[in-house]
């Protein structure tokens, strides 16, 4: 046993050094080749991605295991939460409060929201990080209906949304909020909205990037001005039109 063998002494012998210095530098070539392929991948990504997405979307339709959903852009939603944990709310515990610059502030239960006229929209969902889920049905109450019922006062210009995860916030201008394709969604993909998707009720802003569609919606406050929401304070655009914001050129969703 000779644990303190000096490193690379002359005594190591010529053969030993030969193994190191002779031979082709294949390692370097593999290393540089990998870097080159990576750069090529970035350059050709738009083309590759389109092809792969259409292939995976059709594959995931026929995949009973759900494994394709785990592949990048595997044709599914991705779960994002900014809070450490999100309480669960059901039909008995859920409340949606409408207040701020309104004549009739009120609190809705889930049953009351369900009793209102429901609208169903089928649009693509586009995330600002790149994934897109085609033709996703959302169903719920038009936000404009809730605003009209509350009676928006003079001088109001925006709507602020709060969530029962305790952290997330969003905002829309009053004009944006009154669009027909903005819902308080109670159903998604023709099923009751699950907790992971922001249930029992979430905002659904069809024409904008999906971060505007705040999950676990618990409060609608009419305000004078738009206040940037959670991600918007971290660099995303407040007016998040799909294809016309955040420097992206995705096809508009609504």
């Amino acid at each position, binding site marked *: *046993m*000779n*644990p303190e*063998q000096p*490193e*690379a002494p002359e*005594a*190591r*012998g010529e*053969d*030993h050094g*030969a*193994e*190191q*210095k*002779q*031979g*082709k*530098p*294949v*390692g*370097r*070539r*593999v*290393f*540089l*080749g*990998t*870097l080159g*392929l*990576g*750069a090529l*991948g*970035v*350059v050709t*990504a*738009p083309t*590759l*991605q389109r092809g792969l997405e259409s292939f995976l979307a059709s594959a995931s339709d026929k995949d009973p295991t759900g494994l394709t959903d785990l*592949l*990048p*852009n595997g044709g599914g*939603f*991705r*779960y*994002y*939460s*900014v*809070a*450490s*944990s*999100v309480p669960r709310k059901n039909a008995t515990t859920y409340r949606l409060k409408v207040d701020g610059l309104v004549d009739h502030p009120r609190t809705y239960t889930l049953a009351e929201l369900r009793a209102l006229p429901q609208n169903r929209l089928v649009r693509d969902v586009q995330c600002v*990080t*790149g994934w897109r889920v085609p033709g996703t049905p959302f169903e719920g109450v038009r936000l404009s209906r809730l605003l009209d019922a509350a009676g928006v006062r003079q001088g109001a210009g925006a709507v602020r949304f709060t969530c029962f995860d305790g952290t997330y916030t969003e905002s829309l201008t009053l004009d944006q909020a009154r669009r027909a394709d903005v819902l308080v969604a109670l159903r998604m993909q023709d099923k009751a909205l699950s907790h*992971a998707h922001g249930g029992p009720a979430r905002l659904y802003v069809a024409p904008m990037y999906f971060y505007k569609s705040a999950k676990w919606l618990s409060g609608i406050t009419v305000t004078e001005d738009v206040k940037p929401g959670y991600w918007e304070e971290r*660099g995303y655009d407040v007016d998040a039109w799909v294809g016309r914001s*955040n*420097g*992206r*050129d995705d096809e508009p969703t609504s």
Partner: protein
Amino acid sequence: MSLRVDTPGRTASVRRFGPATRWVHRTTAVLMGVCVVTAACLYVPQLAELVGRRELVVRVHEWAGLALPVPVLAGLVSRAFRADLGFLNRFGPHDRVWLRAALRRDKRRSSRPAGKFNAGQKIYAAWIAGATLVMLGTGLIMWFTHLTPLVWRTSATFVHDWLALTIGIVLAGHIGMALGDPEARRGMRTGEVSREWAEREHSVWRRSAPREER
């Protein structure tokens, strides 16, 4: 197979890795582990739901990724580590024999001659180094979005996602093979391996090593 007649000291140990190489491996492994775990928490829906705290997880992932090449760069001050990189870089005729045997799934020792590193380890090392830098580059594009045209971000995300998946699979293979060879792990942990193992697994390396080493 080496034709050695000196049987005494069968259980003797030989030096395989110096402290620099071992520490570079150790710290790189920890950083890579942090990258993989945080990536899983950002990416796998079930884990993302379990962990939440997206901003914190992103922050940890970014910094671990940024630090990932540092141990190797710091290791370059060590001559022993540079020598190991030299062994990894150079391919001799025996490496071609090894690769051909691997492709044929020929597991006989005699058809798998190897120097200090076998051809598989050499290719793995070169590839994972390149892949790590591609991940770092695409990661930086995703991190500092205002530095590059924004179309690049989508492209970078695409490459980052798919390469992450590939790295995960390859890394699992690397760890799996280490789990299957306790003596190789001992070499990385303590720097010493048994002479018997070295002669069996790395015959070309042992044959060329000085005879006096016991």
